[in-house]
Structures are given as C-alpha cells and as structure tokens.
C-alpha cells in the first residue's frame, strides 16, 4: 500500500515566497543603506533611523480590541469600554516604548576571529545602553541569522554574536545587520539597520585526507633545536607578526622607524617548507586545503614550518601569529595569479 503524497507545485523562481522575501529584504536593505549611508564602526542609534511595524501578534491584538469595541458598543457596557480603551491605549503606549527601547543605544563592532571555511564566523557587536532606564529584549540579526536576546541594565554594555556560516575561503562580509526589540508586549517590532560593512577572514578548510607533509629539512645544523638559530647574522628582513621581540632590530627601528627582523643563517633548525607547487592534488583549492591541514598539524607539534606560495614565501617559524600569517596568505591568495607549473 502506498500512500499518495501530494506535492506542492514548484513555483517559478519569481513566485517562490522565500526567494521573494529574500529579494525584498535585499532591496529594502539597499534602500536603507542608500538612505543612511555607511555607518562608522561605532554608531549611536537616533530615532529617525528606527523603523517600527506591528507584529503578527499586534495584528491579532488589534482585531481582538476591535471585536471588544464592537461588543462594548453593542452591549452598551461602559466597563467593557473601559477595558477596551485601556488595552488600546496600552497598545499605543507600547508602540512608543518599543521605539524608545532602541533610541540612544550605542552599537560598536567588537571584532571577528578568523575561521576555517565551513565554520561560522562569529561577528562580535557590542551594544551599550547609556540611558538611565533598562533596555529589554534586544536582538541582533542578519537575514535568518539571529543573536541571543538579552536585556541591558543602565550603563551596561553587552557583546552580541552573529554567527555567519562560511563556505569558501576568503572574506566573509556582513554588509549590514539589524538590531530589533519586541518590548514591551511584542505587539510592535522596532528595528534599525546598521551598515558597517564588516569583514571577517576565512581560512581554507583543512583537508580531511591530506598526503603526508614533505620531510623535515635540517639545514646546516647538527642538532635539533626548537628555538630559532641565532648564530650567524645573515641580514635584515621586514618584520612579520610572530617574530620574537628579541629578533627585532631595535637599533634600526630607532633610526628609521621601520620594524625589521634580524635573520640568521646557519641555524641548526629543523624546518619544513610547505610549497604550493609541490602539493600533489588536482585543483588549486584542494592544494590550499592540504596546505592548511599541514599548517594546522605542524602548529600542533610546535614544529617550525615555512610556506612557499607562487611569488611569496614565509620563512619557517611557529606560533599563533605565524600560523595566522600563513593561513591568511592562503585565504587571500588569488587563483588567477597562480599559474601553477
């Protein structure tokens, strides 16, 4: 016995409600951006940029009070008139409270940490209540992504998170986001759009099955040493974040103002070179994934590693900053420039 399943007929793209809604949101968002312009990363909400509309519950409430009004008129019942008018006025007052609940909030970008493709980029946005009254039921959103809902004490500042899913390496951008409140009765929804044009970095996804990394080279050295060799001074190069302060050429800095790192040759360092060209994989992105995996694993063993890209190279080192430098390079590398031989 087979059950017959009736399927909702597929609507053409233009008529698909979800798509329509998303398109409408996009348009309205662009309109709002045009109206307001780009916001600085620290913005105070003024009342002119706060929008307000009744919610579904607000519409039901309106219908209910209308029915109550008709009933009161019909029964000529003055006490139920009192009840009805009290509810209507409370609804009107709640509309103003709802809007006021956002006015004057200060919204500032508090950073986003880099993530691997496939993870969620957590945009941190701080909301500060400078008023002497509490703010209730505050939520940040972007499309269907929502932060927690929270209240703010007078003078309190709270960081809300917007977790944007990522799929590909590069930049994840948060062109705009909204802040909304439903306080006090959820009859109205007040919101404001902020266009801070925030960007987050997305590293390539570490490959699940990577080939073994290239063997460790021990240049000049006789023994394994986990610190950078500091025997023979070889020259200066531009400072990379992650270089040890001891390595910085402070005298040169005092002279020129540029941060330079001393380079030493003849270090008895074991180091691995991860070379983009030498990764055996079919396509470019897979190579990047494999490199990412190697870097992540190497960092875990505290081994030094360097990265050779098409035109760039990052000398071997380790540490969080070095890891970030390598992964950032992988994240932002442009495919077209990589004519791989």
């Amino acid at each position, binding site marked *: 016995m087979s059950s017959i399943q009736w399927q909702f007929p597929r609507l053409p793209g233009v008529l698909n409600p979800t798509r329509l809604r998303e398109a409408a949101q996009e348009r309205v968002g662009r309109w709002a951006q045009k109206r307001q312009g780009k916001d600085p990363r620290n913005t105070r909400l003024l009342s002119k940029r706060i929008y307000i509309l009744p919610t579904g519950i607000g519409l039901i409430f309106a219908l209910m009070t209308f029915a109550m009004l008709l009933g009161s*008129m019909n*029964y000529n019942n003055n006490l139920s*008139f009192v009840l009805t008018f*009290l509810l209507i006025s*409370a609804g009107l007052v709640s509309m103003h409270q709802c809007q*006021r609940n956002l006015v*004057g909030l200060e919204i500032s970008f508090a950073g986003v940490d880099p993530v691997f493709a496939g993870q969620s980029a957590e945009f941190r946005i701080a909301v500060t209540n400078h008023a002497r009254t509490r703010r*209730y039921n505050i939520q940040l959103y972007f499309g269907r992504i929502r932060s927690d809902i929270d209240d703010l004490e007078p003078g309190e500042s709270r960081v809300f998170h917007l977790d944007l899913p990522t799929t590909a390496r590069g930049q994840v951008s948060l062109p705009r986001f909204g802040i909304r409140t439903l306080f*006090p*009765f959820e009859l109205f929804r007040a919101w404001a759009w902020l266009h801070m044009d925030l960007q987050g970095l997305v590293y390539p996804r570490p490959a699940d099955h990577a080939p073994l990394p290239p063997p460790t080279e021990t240049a000049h050295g006789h023994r394994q040493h986990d610190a950078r060799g500091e025997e023979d001074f070889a020259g200066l190069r531009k400072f990379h974040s992650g270089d040890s302060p001891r390595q910085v050429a402070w005298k040169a800095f005092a002279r020129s103002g540029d941060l330079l790192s001393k380079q030493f040759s003849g270090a008895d360092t074991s180091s691995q070179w991860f070379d983009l060209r030498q990764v055996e994989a079919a396509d470019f992105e897979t190579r990047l994934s494999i490199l990412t995996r190697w870097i992540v694993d190497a960092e875990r063993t505290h081994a030094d590693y360097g990265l050779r890209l098409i035109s760039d190279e990052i000398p071997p080192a380790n540490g969080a900053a070095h890891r970030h430098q390598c992964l950032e390079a992988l994240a932002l590398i442009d495919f077209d420039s990589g004519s791989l031989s």
Partner: protein
Amino acid sequence: MSRRNGTDGSLLASLPYTLGALAFSIAPHVQYLPVWVTVTFLSCSAARWYIEKRRWRLPPAWLRIALAMLCFLAILFSYNQTISGVGPGSALLAVMGSLKMLETRVRRDQFVLLFISIFMIMASLLREQYLWSLPYLLAAVLITMTAWLRMSQARDVSLLHSLRSSSRLLLYAAPIALAMWIFFPRISTPFWSVPIDTSSGRSGLSENMSPGDISSLSLSDAVAFRVTFDGAVPPPSQRYWRGLVLHQFNGRSWTGREPLPDPKARDRISATGDAYRYQVTLEPTRQHWIFALDIPVDWSPETIKMGSDLHLAYTFPIDQRIRYSAVSRTRYSVDSQLTRMARDWYTRFPEERNPRSIEYARELRAAAGSDERYINTVIRAFHDEEYFYTLQPPVLGRDPVDQFLFQTRRGFCEHYASAFALLMRAAGIPSRIVLGYQGGELNPYGNHMIVRQSDAHAWTEVWLADRGWQRIDPTAAVAPERIESGMSGAMFGEIGASWGLNAPAEWLHQLTLSLDALNARWNEWILGYGPENQERFMKWLGMSKPDWQKMFLTLIALVTIGIVVISIVLMRRNRPPPRDPAAVLYGQFTRKAGLPPRTGETPFDYAQRLRETSVQQSDCVDRVTSRYLKARYGTPDEHALQELEDAVSKFRRSA
C-alpha cells in the same frame, strides 16, 4: 517526537504569572461556572506548572484532542446544548484556556492564554457590573500586563520590577483611555440581539402567578429599580408601580399574554389628580415590562409602548440597565364602557374548580344588592375575619382558592389578589390581576427612591359600570402596614419574632442607604453613560450641538496630544545620565586645543601628543591634565572642579 512535547524549564520565569493572570480573570466566573470547569482549570494549571518544573513531557496530542472533545461535550451537556451567551461562552473560554496550557510549549504560546484571560475579564463585565467591578478590572489588567511584560524580559527580573513597569505603562495609558471613554460616541441601538445568561438567577417578576405553589417567598433585597422624582413624591399608599396584567384564570394560575403595543391605549385613559414626574433606572429583568406609577400618562423614550391592558413594555428584552422618564396621575378612569366580548373575557373562570368560593361569591353578591356593596363586603370580610398575612403560607391543593378562603386563611398578596379576583368574576364583575411593586424607600443620601425585589406585589383591578377599571388591593385590608410602611415593616414582626431578633441596627441601615446612594450615582454616571448622559456631559463641557463627528474629532485630538506627551516623557526617561562636569570642562579644553582626543587615549597620552604636535603652553596643558584627573577620579571635591575650571579658562591655544 520527544522534542516536540518536551519542556526545558524555560517558561518557569513567565508561566506562573500567565497562569496567575488567567486564574485572576476566571475567579469572578467561578460561582456561575459548573464545578467541573473550575476543577479542570485548577488541575490543568497545577499539572502544567509541575511539568515545567520537572522538565517532563507534555501530554501527547491524542490525549489533548480527546480531552478537548470531552470538555466540549460536557459544556453542551451542562448548558442544554447551547454555547451562545455569557455562561456557556465563559465556560468554553475557561476550558480552552485550561487545555491550551497543556500544549503551551514555547514562550509565545502564552499569548493565547493572555488573550483568553482578557476575554474572560470582558465576559465577567458583561455578566455583572458592580461598584467593585472597576477596581477588579484595573487589577486584572495590571496582572495580565505584568505577565505579558515578563514574557519579553529576557532576564529574570524581580516581580516587583515588572509590576512597576506595567503600572507605569498603565498609568501612561490611563489618561488616553479616559479621553476615549468620555468622547467615544455612544449609540443607543444594539447591532445584534444579546443573548444573556439566564442561569445567573436574578430575581424578577414571574410572568404568571400560581398562589399555593410556593410555600415561602424569599425576601430579596436586590434593587428592582430606583426612582428620582422631579418635585412631589407620592405618599406610601399611592406607590403602586404597575407592571404586567394577568387576566386568564385556570382555577389555579393566572396568566397574561405577550406584550402587544396598542397605539390607542393611551387615549382610553382620562386622568385627573396630581401629576408626578420621575425618572426610573431599571435593573435588567430580561423581560419587556416597564414599571410606572399607577397610571402613566406620558413617557419616554419611544422604545416604550403601551399595551391594551395599559401596561408599558420595552421593545427589547431589558438585559441591561435602562433609564426612562414618565409622568403619572393617581386619579383616573379607564374604559368607562366595556364591550360585551371584553366583559366576557374578564369574567371567565373554570366553573368546576373552587366550587365553594364560587358558591360563596354568588350568595354574597345576591345579599349585597350592588356591585359596590358586594366589593365592600368582601374587603370587610378579609379585614374582619381571621385572615393572616404571612410569607410562609401552606401549600395549597387542587382547589387553591377554596382551601385558602375556608381552611388555611394564610397567605401573601398573591393569595388575596387571586381569591379576590375570582370572587369578583364569580359575581359577574370583570376583574384582573396586576403584578408590580408596591412601596419604595426614600434614600436621603441620594435623594432617590429604592424599590426592591421584596416590594413585589400583586393587586387587582375591577371594572365598574360608569367608573371604569378601579384598583383594589385586597392585601391592604388584611395587612394595612404592608401598604403603609412597606415590606420590611410588615415582615419584621413575623421574621424577627421567629428568629428572636430585634430590629436591625440603625447604623447598619444608614450604611446600606449611603452605599446605595453611591451605587445609584455609579449606575447613573458610569454604567449609564449612554447617548443621553454623554450629550448632557458634552453640553456641560461647552460643546454646542454635540454630534458624533465632533466627539470623534475631539477624541482624536486628545489621543494625539496624549501620545505626544507620553513620547516626550519617555524620551526624557531615556536620556543618558548627566555628564560628569569635569568631563564637560575637559571637553572644552580639547576643543580649545583644536585637537580631538582619540578613542581610548588617556589624558597623559593626549597631553603628550598635544605637546608634540604644536608648541603649546605645556605647563598649562599639564595643569589642566592633572586637575582634570583629580576632579574626575579623585575624591568628590567642589574645590577641585573650580580649579579645573580656572585652568581651562586660562588655557589659550598658542598660534
């Protein structure tokens, strides 16, 4: 599946308040609701709360559906297969609320519960509107709003705090609501007929009369109507409030007919004597009858019509308090001629019932010689012979009039009126029974007269050639004090003696009277604020020729003003706290220096930068910086602030 029905305790902060609000709004209904509805509500609330507390799963859907069906059938059964009207409606809402609790899983589901709670408040106002209904209504709205507010407060704030927020909101809303209440145009005709619960057991006059069926008449103190006289007040013996007329007798009961307006009825009255002008505020009776002093010659509004028995009736059943005015004259004559058909009709009675009374009447009539003398004989018989006025008469059998006249000899107005009317008819004199009220107590506090249900009375009218219909009250012959001093005077001897009580304390009586005066004002000005009162009030406010457009425009203007004021108040409350005066002075300093400080820059760093960027009076900069730090972060000190101000004013930006 388990996710769908599971609870996680997240509603613990708001659910108890929602349930509390619902309970508060159901409370006034409890005395009218079938017991099982209250039990269902209480057990569902307790169960729901416990489930949330224990993080159990909600009952499965099939169980909830089965319960819903069961409850619906039970309501149909409890209310004789109807679900319309306040009674069944409120029971249905209470049951819906109870069952909805069992499927309330997320915060937003509680909206349904709160909306049900609001409808329950409204239903209780439709049911009864006492003096305490207004405070109750305000409290119920406050509680509902508090519960509502707690749903949108993300953190667990104290109850006191939410209560304060909702009171403030209600306080802001109150003036707007008041303006709406005063200026919203009232209409006089309902849109649809109103089914009102008849099970709530309010006492009124019954539309037929069977003396002997009931063995005791309860003395209900409930107010039947209140009267305000313009000018003279009739003496107690003239306070006959005419209601409906019964003219068909089957040997036991007297019945009347449906009120039918008779446009010519008024012309049959030729009245003389003093005219009394008065306004009556009639409590709902769910009947058509209008009570007026015997006999009304003029009345308003138009919706009151006179019937062929000279009774007044309202076009709609009176299911809310109404107010009407009338003019009555106490001396009158009606129908000096009666058609043969009418004579037959008013002298008809079943011959086979009450044979002794019929026999007795015919003998007396023959002995008396004339109708007038016969009537006097019967009245004198009631007065002189051993007849007693009592509210606890014995139950009468198959021939109630016979049994009453010759055996028990105890009864109240209905017994005497019924016996007298039959004695008249048996002697060929047209007669009929009038039901209404007799008496009324003047309330010195409110300057009005209260007529209570216990003043209900029955008397007779007989038709005499050339004189027309005449009122004769046989009870007056038996218990003249009933007529002269009202029911309480007549009854006190009997009831007080049987219970061994003295007359009720005078202060208690006075208290009751002043409460009643308050109630009368409440009824007139709050509950009775209808089209007429509104128009009067508008004129008093100075609105010339008030109509609904003017009122509506005023309403809109006032509401707009109210909202603007509230928005300003809210804006002021939202202001940031005043800035530290030291910070203000420091701001002046940075503006003078012409170099905006960077975010997060300390005053020392700023001073350093200032010195580097341009040649400034560095000692001045240092002085401002150190004094600013002292005034802002040091121990609070007026002096420090003064020093800072001096330093800032002395600072000059060097070129």
